[in-house]
Structures are given as structure tokens and as C-alpha cells.
């Protein structure tokens, strides 16, 4: 698993629960280091070990933990860069949803060896969509659910999201876009530091 993803889990725990919680998790997962390097790669089982340890230490079901990670990734000031990169996907939430197909390709442009699961957006009528995440680590869809929920707020859109479970290495998220301009949302300037 790419260090970027392990590092994201680490940052989430550190920024949300503090370094002591992270220390307990690394000990429980039997890591012999305290920090992930974002630009290195790790064995897949390391990610699984850390997630398992985090569920135990934080006393949280795996789905909820993963969804919280998705929320954290696009809302915490320490990882503002990712939110900005996602906002380049579209000027409103509708356009943003349609940019998700490109997300793995966009990630690869930034970090060539970062592989994200394939994503396909299907439109059922004007306001109902399903997002299919293929392959990837089990539970990836929950991270995306948290991320979408928060990005909807970011755009000021009102959505209902439902993770429909995992079938044959695919996870499906149902999206009901109630209104694409419900609230003001957060400002997004194209140029860094403009606002």
C-alpha cells in the first residue's frame, strides 16, 4: 500500500485523537516505527494491521472509522491540499461527482505510483447516482462515503448517501443529490493564498 494512504490514516489518528492514541495503535499493530513516510511503499498487511489496531484502540467499528477518515481528509486544515485538489474537479457538486471517474488518473498524475481503485459514476435520472468503486482495499467505499459527504458540504450541496455494501470486490455508494446549491459552502479560490 502506498505510504500516502498509510500516512493519511496516521494523520487522521494524530490530529483527531492525539499522539498517545497513535502510540497505542502502532504498538498494537507491532510497527517498529512511529511515522509513515508518505513517499515510500509498505506491505499491504501493514495497512490492515494499523486499521485493526485503530478499531480496537479507538473502540470504533471499521466502517465508521473509515468514513471518519474520509471526512477528515477533506475537512482538517492539516490536509487542506487534498480538499483543494478535489475542488479542481468541478465548479459545483454535480460537476465534482462527474470528475470522480478521473480521480485515479488525477492521483496518478500527481504521484505516479499511487494507485486508487477504479471509480465509475452512473446517473439514474437527474438527481440519483451510483458510484461504483472497483478493486482496492476492502472498505475503500466507506472512505469515499465520508469524503463525498464532506465535499457536498464544501460545495454547499444537500445530499443523501448510502453505502450499499461490497459485492465481488466492488463497493457501491448511492448518491441522492437533493439540491446542488443548498447552502453557501466553503470558498474556493483557484490560486493558492488568494482568499
Amino acid at each position, binding site marked *: 500500500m502506498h505510504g500516502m494512504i498509510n500516512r493519511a490514516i496516521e494523520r487522521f489518528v494524530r490530529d483527531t485523537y492525539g499522539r498517545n492514541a497513535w502510540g497505542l495503535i502502532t504498538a498494537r499493530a507491532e510497527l517498529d516505527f512511529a511515522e509513515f*513516510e*508518505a513517499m*515510500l511503499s509498505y506491505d499491504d498487511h501493514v495497512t490492515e494491521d494499523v486499521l485493526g489496531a485503530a478499531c480496537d484502540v479507538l473502540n470504533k467499528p471499521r466502517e465508521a472509522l473509515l468514513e471518519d477518515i474520509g471526512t477528515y481528509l477533506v475537512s482538517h486544515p492539516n490536509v487542506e491540499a487534498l480538499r483543494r*485538489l478535489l475542488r479542481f474537479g*468541478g465548479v459545483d457538486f454535480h460537476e465534482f461527482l462527474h470528475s470522480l471517474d478521473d480521480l485515479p488518473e*488525477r492521483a496518478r498524475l*500527481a504521484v505516479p505510483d499511487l494507485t486508487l481503485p477504479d471509480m465509475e459514476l452512473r446517473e439514474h435520472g437527474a438527481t440519483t447516482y451510483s458510484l461504483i468503486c472497483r478493486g482496492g482495499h476492502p472498505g475503500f467505499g466507506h472512505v469515499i462515503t465520508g469524503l463525498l459527504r464532506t465535499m457536498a458540504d464544501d460545495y454547499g450541496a444537500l445530499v443523501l448517501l448510502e453505502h450499499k455494501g461490497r459485492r465481488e470486490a466492488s463497493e457501491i455508494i448511492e448518491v441522492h443529490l437533493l439540491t446542488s446549491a443548498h447552502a453557501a459552502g466553503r470558498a474556493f479560490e483557484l*490560486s493558492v*493564498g488568494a482568499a
Partner: protein
Amino acid sequence: MAAAGPYLAGLLDTVCPMHALISATGHIQHAGPTLRKLFPGDEVLGQRFLELFEIKRPGHGGTMADLRRLTGRKLHLRMRHGPRTEAKGVLVALPEEKAGIGPSGGALINLSFGISVVDAIRDFGLTGGDFAATDLTIEMLYLIEAKTAAMEASRLLNLRLQGAKIAAEEQAYTDTLTGLKNRRALDHLLERLVMSEQDFALIHLDLDYFKAVNDTLGHAAGDHVLREVARAMVQQTRSDDILVRTGGDEFVLVLSRLTDAARVHEIASRLIARLEEPVVFNGDVCQISASVGSTLSCRYPRPGLDLDRMMEDADTALYAAKAAGRGCHVSFDPPMRGKSATGCRSKPAV
């Protein structure tokens, strides 16, 4: 404008929002929404295009006929006011006949920011909606930010790796018992000193009676004494001097910038006196001393300072000090070379 005017304008606004339709007199008849954003508070309609933008290249005469001749060429432009933003553009002459498209005898100019796009977006507060759907500007901005973030992550990784490397080297160059440098570090540091052509005093120091401490009071006492010796050396020297434990009870000191034998003698004698102060370990008193030989780099020809020669000479002086009854310092003197150590007993050069 011809009858198809509003239709044409709407079409152009969508496909190329940074365009201008220019009349036969060179005045702006219609401007795309993004182009209008570059002149906040100013009505661009009716203004002469060349008063808003300077066409830097290719050169032209400034008349409408001159401009029309630039059809299809790549234009380099600059705004005449505000942040004087640079732009790229292309111009197409419109038909002369009245029934043609757009202002007859005029021109269509389409602009883009080119490489100045990042500044322009900040200066004019542009958003994703200001660019045509086919425009790659947003993708370019995305890439700039993504690559900057990835580069920053790589830079931090490099910094941490470098820090780890320095720490590892520091460890490999340090004598773990005393914290002084080790033999490996000495070779490395002397090489650097030779390259920098800096002068220095080279001192060889052997502890006297140390073996007795080890034999009678044990290794723990010996280790304690060695640590105390190191501490004394650090206290008696300057921070940029190099202190090395080369073997069990053997040390090399490199005192930087020294060229005066008398000064070296003073430092060496003070150090010996300090080392002769009794050290107490677990109630036992350990008493040692030191024999010291030294030589000065300024006495050897440069460039190509012969380090081996210097080491040998410092050793010769050290053996002269031992022969002189230990617990003293001897400066190397060329006549010592090749003579037996006892020959120096009567004349320790200072």
C-alpha cells in the same frame, strides 16, 4: 454588427470567453465575459483594442489593415494597464462584405494567459467557470498544486533521510565510550584540514600508568578514568579542536590554527597537569599522567602537506617525552628524526 450578431456573440462567449470582436475602426464591439473581468469597473465596449492591449510581437504598423494582416499568427500581448499581464492570442480578419459574419472589415481576437495564468487568476479572481469547458487551465492549475504538494512530501522525506544519514555517520565517527571522535573520523577530518590549507598543531598523547588502574581496580575504573580524561580534554581545548581516541589509552588532538610551539607547550602542559589530578572511583583513587608529543603543520611544505610524515614526527616527539621520564610534553624538532628516542632526553625542544 451583422444580423447573426447576438447569436454569434453568445456562441463565442461559450466557446472562447476571452475573445473580442473588433470593428473596422479597431474598436471593441463585443467582449467575452472573462475578458471583461480583466477590466473591473471599466466598460471595454467601444474602446480601441490597441489602447487596452499592446501587441508586442509580431511587429505591426498599428492600423486596422496591419492588424488584419496578422491573421493566424501567434500574438504576444500585454495589458497596458493594471498588473500589465502578458497574454497569448490569435486574430482572424473578418470578411469585408456587409452580409458576412461579425463586424465587416473587423477582426476576431481570442486570448489566453499562457504561462502567466497563475498570477492572472490571482490578480483577477478568476474561477473555474471563467474558462471554457475544453480549456485545460484548470487541469494545469491542478497539476501545479498536486506536483508542488508531492515535491514537498519528497523534500521532507529527503530531509529526514539526510538527518538519519548524518546521525549514522556521527555514530560511526564517535568513540562510544568517551564521546570523542574515533580513528575513522580522524582520517576524514585530517584530509579536510589538508584540503582547506589551514594550519594546526598535531598532538599525540598516551596515558601513563593507565594499565595499572585497569589491572588493579578493574575495567569499570579504567572506563571511568577514560571518560574523565575525555572530559578534561574537552575542557582544556576549544570547540573547533579535534579530539580523538585512537586506541585503548592513546589519543590524538588536532588544535586548529596553532602555529606557535610555545603556545602548544602551554596547552599540553596544562592538560597533563589536569590529567594528573587524582580521579576517585568507588572510593579508590586512580592516579595517572600523560606523555605528549606534538608537531606543527606550519613547519611542513605546502601544498601537499605530508600527513604521514607529521604523524611520524608527532610519534617521535611522543617517544621522546616517554623517554624523558613520562608526564611531560615534547615538541618535535627535525634533529630528532632518525635518532634513538633517548637522544632527545637532554633537549626537549620547546
